[in-house]
């Protein structure tokens, strides 16, 4: 561990978990709901735009926060436990994103047979944006939910 990790923002575990729910809710409902319930002219209802903004700002906060920075850090900045955590979070992120892509792929086949909903070009771009933002925030979210609750004072000893 040659260099120290010095994130610009440090949040408590509870705050990080709360933000992660805002990201998943805001991005998930904001982008998916906005795409499904788009007006006939393609415009997204304001409520969904608001949810997207909440999700986006929460994702940025999680990204620059300590756990998000840990997932971006180079090997030299982390010890072996932190490297293992970082790697696990990326494996889990990869699995979740593959499942989401595969799920959408299956839906795109099924939708042809049942005449189900498929996004237009605008909605597809929106969904892609939501997917990208979620994948950016997911490693930090996974770390926040995988972390054990520890008494900070005990750890400082």
């Amino acid at each position, binding site marked *: *561990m040659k260099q120290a990790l010095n994130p610009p923002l440090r949040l408590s575990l509870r705050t990080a978990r709360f933000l992660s729910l805002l990201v998943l809710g805001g991005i998930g409902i904001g982008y998916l709901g906005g795409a499904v319930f788009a007006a006939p002219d393609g415009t997204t209802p304001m409520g969904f735009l608001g949810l997207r903004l909440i999700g986006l700002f929460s994702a940025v906060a999680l990204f620059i926060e300590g756990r998000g920075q840990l997932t971006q850090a180079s090997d030299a900045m*982390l*010890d*072996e*436990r*932190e490297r293992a955590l970082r790697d696990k979070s990326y494996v889990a992120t990869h699995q979740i994103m593959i499942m989401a892509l595969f799920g959408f792929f299956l839906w795109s086949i099924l939708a042809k047979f049942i005449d189900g909903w498929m996004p237009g070009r605008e909605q597809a771009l929106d969904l892609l944006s939501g997917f990208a933002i979620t994948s950016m925030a997911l490693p930090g979210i996974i770390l926040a939910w995988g972390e*054990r609750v*520890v008494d900070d004072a*005990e*750890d*400082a*000893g």
Partner: protein
Amino acid sequence: MTNNGTPVLHNRLALFRAEAGLSRKDLAEQVGVNPQTIGFLERGHYGPSLELGLKLARVFGVPVETLFSLEPFTPLAQQLIVTKGAA
């Protein structure tokens, strides 16, 4: 005893650290890890690599199996009673 399919590694790190009068930060600096990692090790929430295990044993000047074991350690009080009885 297993934790998610992997054997639990028992350790006496907290005991040795307290006896040596080292803080977690001091010990972490000596073995090149984050102080939080020492806490995780002491609570048994993380099993160290062989390299880290050996480094920790070197700090206390003991063999690595004195610090870590796959079997639970006998409580110190019980060990003292046995030692006193044998003497």
